């Protein structure tokens, strides 16, 4: 029923033609074959991507002005990046276990992901502390201000992810929902984790390369 159609095909349908009427009457009312959570997440990721892109544009534009002084990248940032990579990998494993229906392993993996996410946030705060104690305040140079801004916005995205991770985990442990429903939620969270990893790598790469 849900034959894949491009936007162009959808927009050039002729709803008054006989064949099209027949086809349209069979339509189930869903445009893409995705759960509403997954499509909702994609919508939010699109909006988030625009947000981060605009930050990056602002960063690149502001960088050209002569008062720009690059900030050192503490080695701890590499560690945090590593934590984020591992948490993304573990989440990927979680979805595989959940698909196979291995309850214990899925549960442990979910807990581990949560632990890693909190560690990442704490790690970022420590980086902030280190930078501030060595005199790199937001007001000292705009490059520092951008660093604090990026880490804050990215961190807030992680906090949002932790909220939904918590809801999903508690639903999973209570076993109140059907397997397909809960797996859909776990998959959705995992996609979001990969997205936040990608965003971080782009932001970190941008700050490293400039």
């Amino acid at each position: 029923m849900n034959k894949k159609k491009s936007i162009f095909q959808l927009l050039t349908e002729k709803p008054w033609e006989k064949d099209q009427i027949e086809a349209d009457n069979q339509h189930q009312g869903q445009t893409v074959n995705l759960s509403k959570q997954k499509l909702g997440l994609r919508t939010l990721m699109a909006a988030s991507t625009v947000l981060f892109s605009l930050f990056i544009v602002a960063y690149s534009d502001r960088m050209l002005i002569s008062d720009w002084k690059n900030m050192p990248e503490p080695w701890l940032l590499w560690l945090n990046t590593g934590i984020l990579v591992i948490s993304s990998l573990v989440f990927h494993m979680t979805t595989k276990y959940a698909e196979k229906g291995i309850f214990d392993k899925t549960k442990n993996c979910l807990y581990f992901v949560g632990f890693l996410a909190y560690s990442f946030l704490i790690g970022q705060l420590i980086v902030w502390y280190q930078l501030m104690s060595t005199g790199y305040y937001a007001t000292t140079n705009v490059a520092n201000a951008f660093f604090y801004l990026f880490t804050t916005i990215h961190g807030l995205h992680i906090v949002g992810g932790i909220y939904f991770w918590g809801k999903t985990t508690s639903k999973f442990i209570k076993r109140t929902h059907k397997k397909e429903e809960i797996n859909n939620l776990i998959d959705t969270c995992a996609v979001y984790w990969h997205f936040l990893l990608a965003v971080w790598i782009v932001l970190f790469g941008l700050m490293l390369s400039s």
Partner: protein
Amino acid sequence: MSDEYEHKLEAKSDYAGDASSVSSPDIDSVPDAELPDQELYHSHSWWTTYVFSQDAKYIGIQYALTAVGTGLLGLVLSWLMRIQLAFPGLGWLDPGAYYQFVTMHGMIMVVYLLTALFLGGFGNLLIPLMCGARDMAFPYVNMLSYWAFVVAVLVLLASFFVPGGPTGAGWTLYPPQAITAGTPGSDMGIILMLISLILFVAGFTMGGLNYIITVLQLRARGMTLMRLPLTIWGIFTATVLAMFAFPALLVGCLMMTLDSLLGTSFFMPAMVSLGETLTHEGGSPILFQHLFWFFGHPEVYIVALPAFGIVSDLLSVHSRKTIFGYRMMVWAIVGIGALSFFVWAHHMYVSGMNPWFGFFFATTTLIIAVPTAIKVYNWILTLWRGNIQLSLPMLFSLGFIVTFLNGGLTGLFLGNVTVDVPLSDTYFVVAHFHMVMGIAPILVIFGAIYHWYPLITGRMMDETLGKIHFWITFIGSYAIYFPMHYQGFVGVPRRYFEIYDSPYIDTSTLLLNKFITIAVLIVGAAQLLFLYNLITSARLGKKSEKNPWKANSLEWQTPQMPPEHGNWGKELPKVYRWPYDFSVPGAKEDYIPQNQPPSEIVGAKVEKT
């Protein structure tokens, strides 16, 4: 009708993958629902029913009332400004207060009234009903969206009561002056404004998520995208624009908040203020302008596209005629939406930029006039030889076409760099954007309220009061804005609280100011008449029939009118056609609702969709 369905089995064979559809020869056949019915939240207490409601219809009304309430404040502010402009001798407002009122009037009208009313109000009310859904996709998030909006409004209003008052930086909030001493409200006022905008964007994102997912995924069976009413197309496309445009506002607001609170230098250049060198260094004010207008121009279409959609439906229903060029209308909506992201710098011709940059944006601005003109032609061709009912919604729609055309034409002038430079910052610009983005959408809003009022209350609004309201509003707004075009040509600058004895400004121009102010007061008073009508008709208005305008779209086909919680009773509707089958030759009734099965249509010679 009959020969339509003779080839049914042949046509079906194209869909061989779908086993259920081949079996039945019945022309009404629609396959069984493959998707489960939506789980519906049922409220249990007074609080969850009337305050923290999760019913989209109710949220829509909450949104609309909050937006209109805020908009009334914007209206009163415009009276105060106009009295100052007409009678500067009274010493009515000092320059600071004038700036503050200009700023708050602009921001309230654009963001807190029009955006909230079209998307939050009409979006919530109409999307589930017109798509044939029971509710929005995420009702809880929808409720949060409304309450975030309420908090945003409260923060905005709070700025009137803080030391220094609200910000007076103009609705564009350009740094550096927005956060520099000397501008009214440069400490607390601007911070509250920025926080309020950030909250608005957060709230809107939650609402917008709902609108997009509901339109895409929760439609009734048989409701393809190309069978949707144009209202939904307008609201949907505007929502997509908003999801991409509001982040730019968010970025600008966040960075300016930091500049102001922490003293960072994102937008603030090194400068001397009141004899003191500020600590800021190297910031780029132009960067803010780009961010602001990357949001600001799509914002114009976030307001205009729902108006386009709604007015298309009103014109079709009230002239009993199929909308002319449905597909072209959809394409125009989508095309305008896409193009609206490539025209922003035409707001910045005098900010200083590479001439080629201006050339590029002048070109794109002229290109966007093409799909817009297509829409205007199609509206007129819809009316052509239609059975035009001069009901209130029709009157307002006709008023919209003329006003929008008017404002659009002056937009063509202003889109050209060479014409814009002398006219920039004059009343010509003020007249242009009030015509195209103020009066035109407001006329659609009035038409839409008169049209859908029975759907909400089950009663009709008073026709006579409505006609008085229309004529005063329509003629009055021309009395206000036509003279402003002339003032602009003469060179009267905008944003001045008084023009003193400027030798180049004639006394007749000053007399025009008095004329405009009197017109403003009269038009404003007429809106009180509308409010009176709106409130009293809810109890005293004539009881409405089930489908008072004999419209086809699904919102009028609910089992109860006004629709109940869950909208559709036990069975979700099934859709067999688009919503524009009016005056089908031979059919007994001059309208065929979208969910009427083909077998029940009496006597139609051709069954168009």
